[in-house]
């Protein structure tokens, strides 16, 4: 078991009062599994992903990753968790603008002390980035940037990859192609994938699909 969430709740304090977003989430993800997370806008998909990625803290419930309860983690341990256990891919790519494509690709792996030249090379080949290694992020198209972001995460070989609408900013054809590559590379790396998407068509390409509604997972 790579990730196991049980009875997780999360609410936000807003001006109108307490806004309950997740109301008891139970979710298990197996090693090597690819899971699509769908649901209406505002249903709490990103929130769930942030909790799983150690970016945010649950109100109640537990999240166990690799047999370790991460809900009790302090700030430093959560940082370590993000560095080594969970890799995040966002809709806005979030590359580091001051570094070249190559430095961006290696960045997370080096942080996690998992840099492996041959794996990185096969990744950039697989993602079709070889000709772009010396460019800066702002000299790339959206699809190219997202491929770099995927490569950056996968180069660090995290057991769990969390992707939040990674192809949301791309046109359909590019999005499909990027997704195709991402899923196959995840499999090659042996990473599990939890991916938020709106599209049932894309969701169908993964092992299984779960849907969020009213703060719970529909069975």
């Amino acid at each position: 078991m790579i990730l196991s969430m049980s009875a997780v709740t999360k609410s936000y304090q807003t001006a109108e009062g307490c806004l309950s977003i997740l109301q008891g989430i139970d979710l298990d993800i197996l090693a090597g599994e690819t899971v699509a997370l769908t649901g209406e806008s505002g249903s709490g998909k990103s929130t769930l992903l942030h909790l799983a990625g150690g970016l945010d803290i649950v109100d109640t419930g537990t999240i166990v990753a690799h047999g370790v309860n991460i809900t009790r983690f302090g700030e430093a341990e959560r940082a370590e968790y993000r560095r080594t256990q969970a890799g995040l891919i966002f809709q806005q790519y979030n590359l580091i603008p001051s570094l070249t494509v190559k430095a961006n690709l290696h960045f997370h792996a080096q942080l996690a002390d998992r840099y492996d030249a041959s794996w990185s090379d096969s990744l950039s080949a697989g993602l079709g980035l070889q000709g772009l290694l010396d460019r800066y992020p702002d000299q790339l198209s959206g699809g190219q940037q997202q491929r770099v972001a995927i490569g950056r995460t996968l180069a660090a070989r995290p057991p769990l990859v969390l992707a939040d609408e990674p192809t949301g900013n791309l046109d359909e054809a590019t999005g499909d192609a990027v997704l195709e590559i991402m899923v196959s590379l995840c499999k090659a790396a042996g990473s599990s994938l939890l991916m938020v998407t709106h599209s049932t068509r894309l969701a169908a390409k993964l092992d299984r699909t779960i849907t969020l509604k009213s703060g719970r997972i529909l069975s």
Partner: protein
Amino acid sequence: MIKTTFLAVISHWRYRPIQLITLVTGIALATALWSGVQAINSEARASYARAASVLEQANLQQLITGDQQGIPVETYASLRQAGWKVSPVIEGTVRLGGKRIRLIGVDPLTMPQSNDAPLVKDASDLAEFIRAPGVILMSAETAAQLTDVQGLRIKLSPSVPEDAAFVDISVADRLLQRKGKVSRFVIAPDQSPSLPPIGKISPDLSIRAGGNGTDVSSLTDSFHLNLTAFGFLAFVVGLFIAYSAIGVTFSQRRGTFRTLRSLGVSLKSLTAILILELTVLALIAGSIGVAIGYVIASFLLPGVAATLQGLYGASVVGTLSFRAEWWLAGLAMALLGTAVASAQSIRQLWNMPILASAQARSLATGAERSLRVQAVLGLLLLSLAVLLTWVQGGLVTAFGILAALLLGAALMLPAVLAYTLGRAERWARKPIPRWFWADTRLQLPGLSLALMALLLALSANIGVGTMVSSFRTTFIGWLDQRLAAELYVTARTEEEAERLRAWLPSRVNTVLPIWSVDGDVLGKPVQIFGVADDATYRENWPVITGGDDVWDKIASGKGALVNEQMWRREGLKVGDRIALPGNFSVDVVGVYSDFGNPVGQVLVGLGAFGQHYPNAAKLRYGLRVQTSELDRVRSALIDDFGLPADAIVDQATLKRQSRAIFDQTFAVTGALNALTLAVAAFAMFSTLLALAASRLPQLAPLWAMGVRRRKLARLEVIRSVALWAATYFVSIPVGLALAWVLLAIVNVEAFGWRLPLMIFPIDWIYLGLAALGAALVSVYYPVRLLSKVAPAELLKVFTNER
């Protein structure tokens, strides 16, 4: 529509109050320092002009003489007979009721009427002025300090400068005991043509041109130019703040501008509204600035007044009067500064497409190109500075060198830093250091203005500090040489002086007469001193050039030493022959340094001096005394001889006074220096604060990849300190170059002295610590904001609805 748009545009400030404060502070500080300096300058200039035109009728031509005794009355008669319309003046200093004042005796009947002359307006005034016992005309301030006016009737006139008074010429003759000898003649402007030349009537007389005022104004000009240069530097530094603040607010309001335009607001009316907004802000900030400037000026003016008095003998009223013209000039400067600071942002607005382009501007290429352009420009300016040092072009060229040097160095700075950071990036192996260097390089364009401002402020500090310290060391060494005698005494009358000459020799080691006359040499007023042939001079006098036999030649009466400023001004060489008044020609045999003296000096042997100027006052003496004997000699002079205590000054007191004047002089510079540095620190603070907001999206990905907030905050601190430190290290050579220009070029042009450049690394360390402190202060608040930022804020960066 205009109103709605205007409200939409300015609503921005409600969300960004700190930016509003930054912008207003930038403009206000720039205006404050500039108008403060201008207030001082205009006050001082007004003082000189008043003094010169009133006391010396300086706008008119004058007839003057080199003869100490004055001009005999017969000369007046022959001038009038020959048809010259001249009016005699008898002037001198007199002690009235315990206060020394400058007394100017004029003849109201023949004195040409001028707007400045406050003398007499009508016949009854005239009668009163001439009739016994006579009138003494002075300002209320002077009158308040006088206890005795020798029976004269006091009449108050606000236009008479302090410590001076006008009387009828006959009264002046009596009080000054001139026995009819005239000090100078004022030449009326309406002379009939075909007059015989003055030289035919009296060969001793020469004409002094009117109009351009006295020497005081040209000498003090350089001092004011220095102040102005400082004020301008601070103004530029303040503008940097305004420039970056305006840039930030414009780029943050881009979205609003786009929306407004897509809603049908034309580019023209949007521009007009923004200009209106900036004008209002500039006027508010300018008013605040002028008010602060007034406060700064009133703090600094007493120091400036003391400096001008000490350095140039120019008297300036130590209080500030309110002048509408600099209030207006201050506002104009604020408007101008805002216009300059906002020009680029407005231009960018014109070029901005209505639709946001998908891609942000290319950071890597655009910034790099402008860096290169700046560096080339900077290099050109530095070369220009070097070239200009070969040109001899007076003070204006000297300041041109300064400007080119500072601006060139400032423009080069970002490129130098970028190059260094690029090297560091290539050399870094680990991902965080590599990111750190690359990211710092990316921040450079945003920070470069603040860094340039910092470079200017630090270089000015090092440059001016080095100049002042070099000057001080030289000056103190020079004082030790110059003030070799232990005691200096001044007799009250010639009779007392004669008794003193008889009384002293048995009681002290050596008596050194200090006798001098004033006269014109090479067309300019100089002081001529007679010096005894004594070991004191041979061992101590600060001679710069001259052979071993200088003092022998002086003693022989054929040679003369001149001071450095006269030597440079007249381009004299050793061996040149100069004509002194009274048909006395001497060879220049050497040059000595003479700091703080506005006029030329000539030293000749005492014997020859006595022969040529038998009537010179012989009142002052320097006494060589064993230190252990000092107190005994002094009390003997007071108790046994009967000299008043204030007629005796010892060396230590004189040195202390001289040093106090010196320190006063540079207290003003020091204050301006500190203010400039404070403005630069504020520029850095406001820039970091503005950048902090845009830092979040750049830092959030690192945080998501497991770099802790605390580490990111620490890296931000290190970055700021590293940039400050790099700028500080660049500022040392720039500051030294600045000091060299000040010492070797500006001082020579302005004062006539060249000083050796001395290096005081300990001062740099103090400055470095001050800069480090300022860096930490300026980075503290922005970084605290960052390190305290809630994870929710960081998460927002990743949520899709950004």
